[in-house]
């Protein structure tokens, strides 16, 4: 039997322009939306009318000086802890993938220990380092020392907190970075090696930027987690925001509005970090997508442009223009 190509069969319809499209109906979607709206309205009503929230006190303290200063301490701990912890992860992850059993073992043990010890326990250990070691010496291992400092001078409460957060964070970051590294195609390293690109540059320029795509969503999770974990350092009497609101409500007894002050700040900071995440992820998506999705601002501009009767601003052109 021979195969002969046949023209497409007639569709049985008349000319397309005479047909009208009737959108499908979704009644359950309407029911669901109504329930959600009612719940949201109830909740908002409660927030506004229940005097227990004590909004005037909240407003009085939200941008009060000591609160804002404490907020900066929280931000400082979060960003420094995340940056140093990520740096630690970037060192620990390749070690865990190394061919040397010693490096592998070291990295594995580190991750094991620091993921096992609760952050709060670890922080208390660092704060009490002076009890274990009165002085710290820098010099030849097991040999003579050159510099000697008192532990209390070196490890301030803030230092202890940052150290604890960093070491804790490094263990988690290491696993996230490792997940990113093993997600990169082996052929990439092979191509780089075939070109004679030095090992460190292979990692920094070829592997890590591609690994970032897989690293970033988890890293953002970790960052937001860390933001909240900084509240644990109140045990070291460091004036971060959670400690500070406790100090204030210890004085005036208005527990709920002050907890709300801390809560709203955490929510605002998480929102800011999420925006940052969007742009960083977009940056590392270069080349992974044929065209980058428009940013919210570009989308807004496109909509406004259409409203004003302009055309052709639906998306960013390839490679052209900044993220804005």
């Amino acid at each position, binding site marked *: 039997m021979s195969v002969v190509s046949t023209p497409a069969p007639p569709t049985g319809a008349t000319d397309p322009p005479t047909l009208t499209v009737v959108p499908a109906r979704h009644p359950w979607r309407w029911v669901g939306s109504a329930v959600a709206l009612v719940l949201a309205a109830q909740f908002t009503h409660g927030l506004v009318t229940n005097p227990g929230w004590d909004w005037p006190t909240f407003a009085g303290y939200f941008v009060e000086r000591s609160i804002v200063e404490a907020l900066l301490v929280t931000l400082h701990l979060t960003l420094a802890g995340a940056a140093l912890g990520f740096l630690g992860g970037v060192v620990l992850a390749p070690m865990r993938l190394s061919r040397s059993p010693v490096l592998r073992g070291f990295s594995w043990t580190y991750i094991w220990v620091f993921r096992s010890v609760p952050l709060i326990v670890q922080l208390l250990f660092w704060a009490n380092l002076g009890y274990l070691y009165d002085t710290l010496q820098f010099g030849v291992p097991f040999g003579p020392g050159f510099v000697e400092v008192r532990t209390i001078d070196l490890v301030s409460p803030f230092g202890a907190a940052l150290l604890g957060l960093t070491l804790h964070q490094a263990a988690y970051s290491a696993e996230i970075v490792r997940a990113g590294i093993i997600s990169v*195609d082996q*052929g*990439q390293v*092979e*191509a*780089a*090696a*075939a*070109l*004679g*690109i*030095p*090992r460190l*540059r292979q990692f920094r*320029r*070829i592997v890590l*930027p*591609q690994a970032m795509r897989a690293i970033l969503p988890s890293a953002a999770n970790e960052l937001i987690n860390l933001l909240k974990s900084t509240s644990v350092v109140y045990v070291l009497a460091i004036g971060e925001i959670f400690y500070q609101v406790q100090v204030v409500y210890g004085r005036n007894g208005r527990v709920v509005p002050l907890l709300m002050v801390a809560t709203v700040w955490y929510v605002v900071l998480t929102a800011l970090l999420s925006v940052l995440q969007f742009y960083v992820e977009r940056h*590392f998506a*270069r*080349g*992974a*997508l*044929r065209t980058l999705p428009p940013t919210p601002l570009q989308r807004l501009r496109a909509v406004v442009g259409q409203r004003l009767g302009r055309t052709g601003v639906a998306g960013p052109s*390839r*490679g052209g223009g900044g993220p804005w």
Partner: protein
Amino acid sequence: MVRLRGVHKTFGTHEVLRGIDLDLPAGSVTVILGPSGSGKSTLLRTINHLEKVDRGTVVVDGQLIGYRQVGDRLYELGERLILRQRADIGFVFQNFNLFPHLTALENVAEAPVATRRLTRAQARERALALLDRVGLADRAGAYPRQLSGGQQQRVAIARALALEPKLILFDEPTSALDPELVGEVLDVLRDLARAGTTMVVVTHEIGFAREAADTVVFLDAGRVVEQGPPGAVLDHPAHERTRAFLSKVLT
């Protein structure tokens, strides 16, 4: 230019290369044929030390690859020296292995900058010239995923040329391409051959071998079964296994 002596390679218990001897003069084009699994890729990869040989020696341009010989001892080279040797040997992969997060231009300019042979500006200039040579000057700013398979492989060839290697190895450069894109890549290979580049090409494109190769090597089960000018090996194969393979490829 390239001299292989008694090259052996075993993966686990599977002896993939069983004593390969080859001599490839400078400026020559060698096509390696052979059935799947016969060790063609492994052989190419031993030439730039992506695979370490178990026994035997590889010499490229008078340089022992991967080792330093002192008396009758071979000392393994450190990674830095091996990388330096590799920079003189281009490698083009079957599936391109372009860096997807870099533009075509950045892909080509990366190695000369990384190995500190050129400044960034010089490297970009040379990369543009090379992209022009493979007919892609207008796509310099494109990312690999925005290019067709044939275009990607041409960028990969430009990338391999960027270090001005003494020798370029091609591992089935057209096997991952749609049939209508094979021609544009083979055209580039023909140009290189005409310009006197020393090339070793693993391919099933018999037409290309006939036209561009100085020597055709037929590999089977880790041994060189026969080698010679394309006219001899392709038209009058001496061995039954070569004949059987060619009859499969040519139909």
